[in-house]
């Protein structure tokens, strides 16, 4: 059945070849490798189709009215209103869908249909093979600045059901086009705080506020805070400038992805990530030592000095 579904998906994908996403082509025009990570040597028709098309997840209306479907639907609710449905594990004002747009369905916004089939996998972040459940624990600990739900806990079972349901028919073990965020080519000029601040003021502050703290209505986050005590912490993937630049380029301003230049995306990502945020939960008592152990990367500003301020001191939630 799984094979049949896969073939069906590929056949459908083939029909979509002509309608291949414009942003994808745009990136190719800029001389950037496509987001597919399939083996380059592969030349089968199936791989060619997979490399040029996007997996299309089933619509939410297709969630079955079964005990399993109820779990999937709960996972969707947790995904979109994480602070409400998984409050015990959330320490900020974000939801999964703030970084995984369209409730985890949008290509180039770290879609769940591409993440689920890619696990278990080795991660250099923690140096061992992670299950999908453990990968999601990391999201709660870092991006949600909260606590990891125990493996097998209702929250993780629901989220895993949602991701599994969404990825049915997607090839397993392959890195699908649209997975994660696009990897931007190195910018012509090193990312710069002052230029990034200008981009922020002209393109981001309208929604996220001049202070970057986002906007809430009736206790619900409409525009997420980008730094400060209610945002993701220093251990989250989005704190790395290249990750944020790829996300921003493909997805921001919301609904107008791929309208910023690469340079603007790099600059504004740097600006966002050069602000203080909650401490890395792996903090070992020393900023330099924590940087050496967990942030030894040019893409992390943790433990560096920007605009005369040492970053990585953390913010306390209130």
């Amino acid at each position, binding site marked *: 059945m799984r094979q049949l579904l896969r073939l069906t998906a590929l056949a459908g994908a083939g029909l979509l070849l002509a309608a291949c996403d414009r942003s994808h082509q745009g990136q190719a025009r800029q001389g950037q490798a496509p987001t597919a990570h399939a083996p380059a040597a592969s030349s089968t028709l199936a791989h060619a189709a997979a490399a040029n098309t996007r997996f299309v997840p089933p619509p939410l209306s297709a969630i079955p009215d079964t005990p399993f479907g109820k779990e999937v639907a709960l996972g969707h609710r947790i995904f979109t209103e994480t602070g409400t449905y998984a409050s015990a594990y959330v320490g900020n004002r974000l939801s999964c869908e703030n970084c995984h747009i369209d409730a985890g369905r949008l290509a180039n916004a770290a879609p769940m249909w591409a993440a689920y089939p890619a696990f278990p996998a080795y991660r250099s972040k923690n140096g061992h093979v992670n299950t999908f459940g453990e990968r999601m624990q990391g999201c709660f600990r870092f991006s949600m600045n909260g606590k990891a739900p125990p493996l097998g806990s209702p929250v993780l079972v629901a989220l895993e059901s949602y991701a599994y349901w969404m990825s049915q028919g997607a090839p397993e073990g392959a890195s699908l086009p649209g997975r994660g965020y696009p990897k931007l080519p190195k910018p012509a000029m090193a990312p710069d705080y002052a230029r990034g601040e200008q981009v922020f003021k002209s393109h981001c502050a309208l929604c996220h506020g001049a202070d970057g703290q986002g*906007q809430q209505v009736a206790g619900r986050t409409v525009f997420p805070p980008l730094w400060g005590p209610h945002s993701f912490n220093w251990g989250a993937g989005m704190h790395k400038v290249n990750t944020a630049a790829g996300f921003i380029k493909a997805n921001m301003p919301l609904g107008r992805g791929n309208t910023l230049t690469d340079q603007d995306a790099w600059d504004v990502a740097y600006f966002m990530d050069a602000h203080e945020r909650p401490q890395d939960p792996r903090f070992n008592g020393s900023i330099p030592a924590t940087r050496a152990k967990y942030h030894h990367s040019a893409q992390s500003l943790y433990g560096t000095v920007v605009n005369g301020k040492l970053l990585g001191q953390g913010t306390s939630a209130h």
Partner: protein
Amino acid sequence: MNAPRLLAFAAGWALTASALAGTQPDGASIARLGNGHGVAPCAACHNANGSGQAAAGFPRLAGLPAAYLLKQLDDFASGARRNATMQPVASGLSPAERKLMADYYSTLPVPAPAAPAAPMDAASKALAETLSTQGRWSKGLPACSQCHGPGGVGVGDHFPPLAGQSAVYIANQLHAWQHGTRHNDPLHLMKTVASKLDAADIAAISAWYASQPATGKGGASP
């Protein structure tokens, strides 16, 4: 308070009020009477309580964000937003009067709808609910609620409430953005989303938001 004292108090209050009105016109009097320099009373179209006239497509102003209202008035005055009725009104108001009116309408309570919303068929309702809460990301279309807030209550200074707004007005604006006849939206956000809607989408969204309960301006908090 005896009768003569009451009369004296009332007379004194009336004098003070008229003196104030003479030096500093207030929003309520401009809304009711015009500004005395040729600008017609706002209430003629938007009603005394700021409810607008839904069927005619005159929008509700009561409870909308002051910054949003001021931007629209300024844009009408400068021509950045075109409307044959509003252009002479806005340019006939001084900048200070525009600010006064924006502040005035933003503080008015949201009136109850004058008439029950038109019933929607199930398919249109389902379409509107999907577009408002999920969008249509396969076409790059965000959900309305992602900027205008849950239920369209409005968010902050730049994203006005849609709930309880005139369906005719909402539809007119979406068509205007689509055709490029309205183009004063920040970052072209509305132009972008309107270009991804078809006529059925617009009809469904407009009717659905008009039927949603308006709870006052979406007070954004940090």
